[in-house]
C-alpha cells in the first residue's frame, strides 16, 4: 500500500483495516478499492450489495449507515454510482461502498436492491435518491418521492435535467 495525497500511510488510515477484511472475507464481492484522502472505499456489484452490507453490520461492527447518495457521471459507463457511507461506533472507523449502475435508457430506471432491511436508516435516504436520480430500489417498502411532489416530471439531480426547466402547475390533490 502506498501513501495518499496528504502523505499518510494508507494502512494506518481509519477504515482501511475493515476494508482489507471485507476483501478477504467476501472474495469476489469487491471489484475495486482505494483509500484516497484517507477514505476507505470499496466498489461492489449491485447484486452483492445486500451481502456486503449484512457482512459489514454483523461481522465488522458497522452499526450505522450514515448516508446514501448517488452521483450521475453523464457520458461515462456505468453512468450512475450509488454511494453508501458507513460508520462503526465500536471501532471508530468509516468505510464507503460504491455501486456502479448502467443507464438502461430513457424508458427504464436503473435498479439496485434496497438495503432497508439491513439498515432502516436507508428508508428515507433511498427515497431521496429515487426522487432525485430516478434509481429504483428493489424491495423498498415505500418507494415514493420525498422532497418533491408526486406530479413532478423528471429527476432533477440528473446531469441532463436543465436547471431552468419549468414544471407544470398542479392543483390541490384532494
Amino acid at each position: 500500500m502506498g501513501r495518499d495525497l496528504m502523505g499518510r500511510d494508507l494502512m494506518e488510515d481509519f477504515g482501511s483495516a475493515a476494508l482489507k477484511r471485507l476483501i478477504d472475507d467476501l472474495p469476489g464481492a469487491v471489484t475495486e478499492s482505494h483509500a484516497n484522502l484517507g477514505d476507505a472505499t470499496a466498489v461492489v456489484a449491485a447484486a452483492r450489495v445486500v451481502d456486503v452490507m449484512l457482512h459489514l453490520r454483523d461481522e465488522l461492527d458497522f452499526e450505522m449507515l450514515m448516508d446514501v447518495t448517488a452521483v450521475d457521471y453523464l457520458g461515462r459507463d456505468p453512468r450512475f454510482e450509488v454511494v453508501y457511507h458507513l460508520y462503526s461506533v465500536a471501532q471508530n472507523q468509516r468505510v464507503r461502498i460504491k455501486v456502479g449502475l448502467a443507464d438502461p435508457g430513457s424508458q427504464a430506471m436503473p435498479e439496485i436492491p434496497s438495503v432497508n432491511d439491513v439498515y432502516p436508516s436507508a428508508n428515507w435516504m433511498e427515497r431521496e435518491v429515487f426522487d432525485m436520480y430516478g434509481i429504483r430500489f428493489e424491495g423498498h417498502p415505500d418507494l415514493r418521492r420525498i422532497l418533491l411532489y408526486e406530479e413532478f416530471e423528471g429527476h432533477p439531480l440528473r446531469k441532463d435535467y436543465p436547471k431552468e426547466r419549468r414544471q407544470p402547475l398542479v392543483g390541490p390533490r384532494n
Partner: protein
Amino acid sequence: MAQHQPPLHFPERPADLEEDFERDLHTEHQILNMGPSHPATHGTVKFLIELDGENIVNLDIQVGYLHRGFEKECESGTWYQAIPYTDRLNYNSAILANIGYVMAVEKLLGIETTERCQWLRVMSGELSRVADHLTRCGAGCLELAAMTPFLYGIEARELTWDLLEMLCGARVTSNYVRIGGVKHDMPRDFPATAKDFIAKIRQLLVDFDDVITSNRIFVDRLKGTGIISKEDCLKYAVTGPILRSAGVPLDVRKTDPYLVYDQIDFDVPIGEVGDNYDRYLVCVEEMQQSLRIVEQCLAHLDKIGPGPVNIDDPRVRWPAKGKVFNRMEELIQQFKSVTEGPQVPAGEGYFAIESANGELGFYLVSDGGAVPVKVRCRPPSFVNLAPMGEMLKGAMLADLIPTFDFINMIGGECDR
C-alpha cells in the same frame, strides 16, 4: 368516527356495564392532517396522523416544503459560490455548515489552514451551536405554552448573534468561512465584548434553568415522551443530542477531532433514558460546554497573538485589495478568483463535523475543474426526523409537539 345509532328502546341492563359499553362503542381510526403550517411546529412539515382516540397509530411525515435545489445549485456554480448556500441549510447555526463544506473542499485540495484561523473557526462555530440550542430549547418551551423562558432564550441568542455580527457583519447568514481561511480576523474589541456577553448568557441560562427545568408541567410533558433506545438510534443512524441522550457518547469532535478540538478541554454530556427531557438536559449542558470552549479559544487567540487567518496558497489566496487596484498581477488574480475560483483536484472525499443537530457530512466529487460534480450534504435533521414515527407509536397526540421540537428539524437543512 363510526355513526353510532342509539337503540330505540333500552335493552336489559347488562351485568358488566363497562365492558359492554366498550364493545358497543365502535371506534374507527381517524386521519388527521397537521401542517404544513401549524402554530405548534416551528418548521414547514406535514404530518398525516392516524389516530385511535387520542393515541397515534401511524405517522406519515411529509417533508420537502422548503426544497430549493441546494445540490443542483452547488453543482452549477464554482466551489466558492456554494458557501453562501450552506449558510441557508441550518439558519440557526450557519457557521457550522460553512465549516463543514469548506473543510470538505480543503480535504480535496489537501490544504491545512493557519493556527489562528482554526481557533477562530472553532470559536465562531461554538457560538453558533449555542444559538442553535437556545432556539431549540426556547422554542420548545414556547410550543408548550411557556412564554417566559423563550424570551430568556431569545435574549441570550441575540447576544450570540451580536457577537457573530461583530465577527462577520451578519447575524444569521454569516458567510464567514472561506476556502483556506476565514473572511477576516476578529475586531480588536471583540474579546472584551465576548467575555462580557458570555457572563450575561450564563446568567440568562441560570434564569432559564430556574424558571423551567423543574417546572411541573414542563417535566410532565417531556419525561417519558418520544423515547428512542440506543439500538434504534444506531439502526436509524440518529446522531447528535438525540443519540447522546440515549446514552451513546458519540461526538465527532471527540471521535475524530478536526480543527483544534483535540487541544480543547470539554465534556460530552449523555443522558440515560433517551426521552425528550434527557434531550433538553443534554442541550443545556452542551451550551455550557460550548461557552467553555469559546473562553478557551479567546484565551488561546490572545496567547498566540496576531497572525495570518488565510493560507498563503496561490490556488485559494485572494490578493490584498490595495494591490488589486494598483498592480497588474494582483488584478488578474482577483479576476480569476472571482470568475473561476480554485481548481480542485479530481477525486472524492467525505468530511463530517459535529453540527448542533448531529453529524453534518459533505461528500464532494470533483473532476479537476472549477465546478463541483457532486455536492452532497448529509443533513442530520433529515436523518433524525425519519424515526419520529417509531418514537411516537402509541403515544398521545400531544406528545408529538415536544418530540418534534427536540428532534429540532430545521426545514432549510432537512429539505435542502
